[in-house]
């Protein structure tokens, strides 16, 4: 069920709630935060498996999906993205939630766990390091301006989804979804994350954390996943052998199974 709310800086954000838990029991909440250039829609294949056990909320990050694209003079930074999530939780009357996040959604998820530990019960981080250091993100956008997003992301799609393994129709669909994004907004959004790196702070994450590492390390800093595991007190790490960045798009069933097993282990009282 799609709904909307307006943030404290006046941006209308869309979110979706799906819940197939037993109606006579209290349902734990799981918030899904998507990656850059994505939307809640792209999580479709993970929702039914999760919503059987959790009240699943998917937020369209500002500037993405059905959420409003902020005007160029609206200030933007990572703290604003934190506030968007906190304001949604407040609007829904939720003190805390589990978070499952992909890539850039996982940057926000970690910052929330660091700076608002009372609001985050656990983290499932799919292909998410503490920020996005390096020039990769900026070069995609620079190139997209001259050659178009379709060409740039089409050429590099194997970094995200293994072309030799995945259904070509899935790849085509994901590319189409990527190209729906507003390029000017992505320059601000991805640009900000490119300048952000908070590895030194992840040791402050107190909640159980599952790190899913795409083994082929096509995007970002591969060594960062093991370092996160060392620094986060309650972390565990699963490596998807030869995995590409967008495990949430092409390995949804595996991600769901790993997330459910992790959550069941740490929060057995929530599941019957």
């Amino acid at each position, binding site marked *: *069920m799609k709904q909307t709310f307006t943030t404290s800086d006046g941006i209308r954000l869309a979110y979706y709630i799906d819940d197939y838990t037993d109606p006579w029991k209290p349902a734990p909440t799981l918030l899904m935060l998507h990656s850059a250039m994505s939307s809640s829609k792209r999580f479709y294949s993970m929702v039914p498996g999760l919503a*059987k056990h959790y009240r699943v909320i998917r937020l369209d990050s500002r500037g993405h999906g059905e959420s409003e694209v902020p005007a160029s003079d609206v200030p933007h930074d990572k703290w604003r993205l934190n506030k968007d999530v906190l304001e949604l939780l407040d609007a829904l009357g939720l003190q805390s939630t589990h978070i499952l996040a992909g890539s850039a959604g996982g940057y926000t998820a970690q910052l929330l766990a660091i700076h608002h530990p009372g609001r985050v019960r656990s983290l499932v981080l799919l292909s998410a390091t503490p920020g996005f250091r390096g020039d990769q993100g900026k070069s995609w956008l620079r190139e997209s301006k001259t050659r178009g997003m379709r060409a740039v992301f089409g050429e590099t799609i194997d970094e995200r989804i293994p072309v030799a393994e995945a259904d070509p129709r899935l790849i085509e*669909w994901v590319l189409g979804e990527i190209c729906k994004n507003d390029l000017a907004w992505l320059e601000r959004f991805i640009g900000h994350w490119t300048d952000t790196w908070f590895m030194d702070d992840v040791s402050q994450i107190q909640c159980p954390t599952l790190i899913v590492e795409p083994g082929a390390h096509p995007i970002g800093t591969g060594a960062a996943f093991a370092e996160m595991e060392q620094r986060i007190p309650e972390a565990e790490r699963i490596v998807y052998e030869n995995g590409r960045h967008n495990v949430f798009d092409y390995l949804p069933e595996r991600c769901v199974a790993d997330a459910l097993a992790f959550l069941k282990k740490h929060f057995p009282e929530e599941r019957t």
Partner: protein
Amino acid sequence: MSLTTEMQYLTASDGLTLAYAVDDFSDPWRPQETLILVHAAMGSSRRLYKWIPTLSRHFRVVRPDMRGHGTTEIPGPDQLSVERLARDVIDLADHLKCPQFHLAGSSAGAIVAMQTALDYPERLLTLSNFASTPGLKPSNIDMDKWVRHIRAKGIKVMLEETIEERFPNVADKGFLRWFVDESAKTNADLFCRFGPMMKAVDLTDRLHEIKCPMLNVVPGHDPLGSLEQYAVYKKHVARAELIVYEGLPHNITDSVPERCAEDLLKFLMKYRAQ
């Protein structure tokens, strides 16, 4: 707080407003296939919530509230018959611009599904029957007794007094409470029309007309119908499959919903376009 699927509405060909829910997490890059799932008497689309995660990953799952049930309007004196209920399924499919679909039903909903298969054979890809004889005439249900019980005490008390025999295999008191509360939303007068109408239906003689693949999942230990009464499909329907849930009484669609959904999915995947 749960059961978040929004109800949607259409106007049936006789003017009644029908409610339905759609859940669809199927791959948007595959050709869409639709499954219409019809609930039992005294039920509603809500009672099938536990089937959805399994099925909606592969099909657009549409759950109507039968006329008189859930959030669908109560039909007028001339607006309730099994043929009319079958027509509602078609009106819904037309509304969704869906020329062909998979159809499944639970108990009385399965009778509606069979009637739909007989009246509109070209519309069905497959037919699935959960826990129903072909009409209630060939069942052991004493409908007069049910109606008397409801007339005397109301649906809620009737269900409270019979809940143990309905679910001897379910220990979860929360579920039993919920089942009673959900079912008791049914209008008693409506049930006293609906039940006897279904009790007059016997489709046995027409079953041979069903040409599409038909799945039959039946309870193995049910005082409301013997295995012989339930197994009639193998005899009359060319492409019938039969799965017996050994030892279970009538209400399999509520007591083992995930098992039902998994068996239905296994059956449907054999006939999915790709």
